[in-house]
């Protein structure tokens, strides 16, 4: 799974939790400032992605996540390396 495909899954989860414009979900977007996603929303988003990708993300790995790109990095680290 490449980064764009993970972004697609993450974006879908963010839109379903936050209800924001999908176009606003870019890797540079700041979760709290740009998307108004607080820590509770991030936990919900990651739960949805975990279900979709069948991975597990420990809570402590989310504490430094500020942007969509940060979340992408954490998620990609949990997936088998792309061929």
């Amino acid at each position: 799974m490449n980064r764009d495909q993970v972004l697609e899954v993450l974006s879908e989860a963010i839109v379903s939790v936050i209800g924001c414009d999908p176009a606003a979900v870019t890797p540079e977007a700041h979760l709290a400032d740009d998307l108004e996603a607080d820590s509770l929303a991030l936990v919900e988003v990651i739960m949805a992605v975990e279900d979709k990708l069948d991975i597990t993300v420990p809570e402590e790995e989310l504490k430094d996540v500020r942007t969509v790109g940060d979340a992408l990095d954490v998620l990609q680290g949990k997936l088998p390396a792309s061929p």
Partner: protein
Amino acid sequence: MSGASEPVTATRRRVVVTGVGLRSPAGNDVDTMWSTLLEGRAMAAPIEAWSTAEHPVKYACEVRDFDPVERFGHKEARRIDRAGQLGVAAAGDAVISAFGEGGPIGAGIDPARCGVVGGTGIGGLATLEEQIGVYLERGPTRVSPLLVPMMMANATAGLIGIEWRLNGPNLCVATACAAGSNSIGEAARLVREGAADVMVAGGTEASITPVATAAFWRMGALTSNPDPLVASRPFDAARDGFVMGEGAAFLVLVAREAALARGATIWGEILGYGRTCDAYHITAPPDGGAGAAACMLAALDDAGLEPAAVGHVNAHGTSTPLNDAAEAAAVTKVFGARGVPVTSAKGVTGHLVGAAGAVEAVASLLALRHGQVPPTANYEAAEEGVEIDVVAGAPRPLAAAPVVSNSFGFGGHNATLVLGAA
């Protein structure tokens, strides 16, 4: 002057209602609810929120035409349980009707002098039930991080405070079916005693859930009448239990002098408030309704009124055999045989649990405003020997005399409000 430094004084301020809002099975605004009550139209209907195929209870009084996404937006709507959604929406209407879109702060009132008392019987029960299912099926890592703020009973009071930025007293009263009246009464005391200048007070409930409905059914509290339209029949000899209801109502309570100075529309006055406890049994009232009678007398004493001054009683009148027998006995004890007209809204609305007293306080204010007592839906005749004057069949004209509004809750909680005309 900040709220913290304002002393609670012995001075008794008169407390009036300057705003009302509701979401009810009989309508989502006061005019709709009033016309439904006047018609005496039972609102029980097949449950739409979930499938009743495998459930013994098939109908209830649900709130219709309420779109939480429209009111709160997508993100907030999914973070607030239905109990909170109904309560915050009702409170918002009350605040806007009292102060306009800017609320108390927009009207220049110190937010530290504004507060909330939000009652509920249970809180965010639908969310709790759903998440217990998630836990059992998928384990602890799948439980929603939003469960606690969605299920907690005080969520509605907190959310109302957040929406309108009210920094004063903020409380939740959870006295089961008495919570709505207790909330209004306790809030009125805060204004009366000078602890706050504006209180948003009322109740909310959204407990028509599969498990809670089964639980009320298992304890024998619900009617087993197959016809929803005649099932809720307060004080009628053929009553056999209540119909589950849901909804919310909130009032804005302010000191009368301040309301007059601002030229606010006044819906009525909270003249008195009584609260007692049966201290008898966790669900049943004592024969003769001693606690209920003491509560009505306490409220009348607080209002400085004799029973003869009362125009009508807006009864708790749930349509259960035990409540209505005890309440009828209590009313007879306080007012004499057929001594006062009695009405119950629950033939129309079903039983709104922690919101019931608040919705009925609004109904009482509307009765005073319009000079009519709404009929008790489905009432035909009481048992032999029960001497109460139930308003039924058609509305009854009323002089603008004070209303006694009763609420009684499991636990033995009794709450009575005395409401007067504007």
